[in-house]
């Protein structure tokens, strides 16, 4: 039960403004925001294990070291295993990828042919002229246009991603102490409200992650079921991949759509009805996801009205592009909690009077040492 009044229109206006400003700044230091997010996700996922170790009798710091050590070991083993599997099966993977990309390109070619036949104006379209028609041309275009940029981005991101295990170690080991130290620095008058704020921020972030997991499950189920009914190979895997890509709203959805269409076009090259069926299914699930599932799971977890969630997604995209889409809801969740609490402190005359009294007492107190 909450006794505090719900935030008014002015508070919501401030929340939206601050959210947009933070998204704008985050977009500028994305190399730092992404590792921070990964650390946060890792922290919440590993916290139950930490608590279990403390319950088993380990000291908190020792438990932090053990969990980080385990994480490091699992990462090293995972990467080694991945490299081993990649080395032994790289040829097979390459062939499979080439097979599906070619299937997608063939479908694209056929669609373009039909379009050009029905709409002669389309023949002059730059889109039709620039689309590669075979795998070699597509590879050449990719190497020419994107590979260099992709490698540069990788070099740019690698050092910041190396920060993740380092930050995770300190977060697990000292996160709780750091939180307590920050709370300790707050004046006594605002102590309880600050505790409440930290608790709500914590709850918001956890709710966001839980909401995201629910969303992934719903997406995977709907897509997997639809693809299975259409007879597409590996429906659950495809559904899961598209659902994970959809963590990045709209942009990730488009990538998932291309993936599903490529597989459908390769599985049924001579059956356009099935391919278009997949496209329609995908669009329906995406619409459901963006306008129903996302506001009902993530939005509701953060106590936002579905309409506000959808509007903020558009605003996030306008301010900070794909990063804004991904970050807008959790950032607004945290900003809402902090703004609400600060609003309560500022408007609570008793708290401010108590703070002034404490300062007065401090001034009149005889200096020790």
């Amino acid at each position, binding site marked *: *039960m*909450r*006794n*505090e009044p719900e935030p008014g229109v002015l508070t919501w206006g401030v929340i939206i403004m601050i959210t947009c400003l933070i998204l704008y700044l985050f977009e500028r230091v994305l190399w730092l925001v992404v590792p921070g997010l990964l650390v946060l996700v890792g922290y919440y996922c590993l916290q139950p294990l930490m*608590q279990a170790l*403390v*319950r088993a*009798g380990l*000291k*908190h*710091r020792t438990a932090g070291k053990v969990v980080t050590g385990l994480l490091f070991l699992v990462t090293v083993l995972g990467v080694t295993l991945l490299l081993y599997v990649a080395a032994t099966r790289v040829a097979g993977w390459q062939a499979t990828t080439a097979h599906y990309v070619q299937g997608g390109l063939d479908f694209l070619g056929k669609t373009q042919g039909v379009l050009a036949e029905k709409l002669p104006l389309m023949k002059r379209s730059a889109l039709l002229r620039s689309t590669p028609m075979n795998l070699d041309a597509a590879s050449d275009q990719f190497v020419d246009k994107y590979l260099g940029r992709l490698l540069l981005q990788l070099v740019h991101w690698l050092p910041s991603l190396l920060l993740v295990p380092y930050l995770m170690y300190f977060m697990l080991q*000292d996160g*709780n*102490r*750091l939180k*307590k*130290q920050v*709370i*300790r*620095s707050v004046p*006594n*008058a605002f*102590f*309880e409200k600050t*505790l*409440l704020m930290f*608790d709500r921020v914590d709850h918001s972030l956890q709710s966001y992650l839980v909401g995201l997991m629910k969303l992934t499950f719903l997406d995977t189920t709907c897509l997997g079921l639809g693809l299975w009914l259409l007879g597409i190979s590996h429906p659950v895997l495809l559904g899961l991949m598209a659902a994970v890509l959809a963590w990045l709203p709209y942009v990730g959805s488009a990538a998932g759509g291309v993936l599903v269409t490529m597989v459908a076009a390769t599985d049924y090259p001579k059956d356009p009805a099935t391919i278009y069926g997949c496209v329609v299914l995908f669009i329906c699930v995406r619409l459901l996801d963006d306008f129903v599932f996302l506001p009902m799971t993530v939005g509701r977890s953060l106590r936002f009205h579905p309409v506000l969630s959808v509007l903020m997604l558009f605003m996030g995209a306008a301010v900070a592009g794909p990063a804004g889409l991904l970050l807008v809801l959790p950032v607004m969740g945290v900003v809402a909690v902090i703004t609400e609490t600060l609003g309560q402190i500022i408007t609570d005359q*008793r708290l401010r009077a*108590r703070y002034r*009294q*404490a*300062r007065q*007492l*401090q*001034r*009149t*107190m*005889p*200096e020790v040492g």
Partner: protein
Amino acid sequence: MLLGKQTERRQILEVMKSPFNFLRAAADDRRIENLKGLSLFKRLTARELRELDLLLHERSYQADEVIFDEGDTGLGLYIVVSGRVKIVSSHAALQRVTPECGPGDFFGELALFEESQRTARAVAGEPTQVLALFRTEFFSLLERDRGIGLKILFELSRTVVGRARKLLASQPHLPIV
């Protein structure tokens, strides 16, 4: 004024230094021993105290500083570590039950059960150190480890029952069952 500023500066320096303090393995064991000495936690083992310690917040109050006020929304319980806390209530009967809390005593316990308004004002009678246990953190502990919660709730209930008896005894027209 100048002295006040110096104190403030020293406190800021302490806060700035404090994040680095945890890099040293602090005197955790001594803290656990101190916690064991508090009546509310006397039934807890060292392992349980270590888990509980993560949730406790230390606060220091000057003489005459208000800890919480009557009518505030109660968010947690306070345990006196050192010093003295005066409890002042507009309800005469309540005032008689716990007029003062000393080291080991706790107050504000009703806030641990429900988010209701405080029925009394708590003021530090002298420079006082307290430990605060926040309700939602205590609930999360209850969910994780019912054993710890049960032991704390048992001790808490004993004190609350004692205070209720005292309250009823001060109201002769009400029978004590």
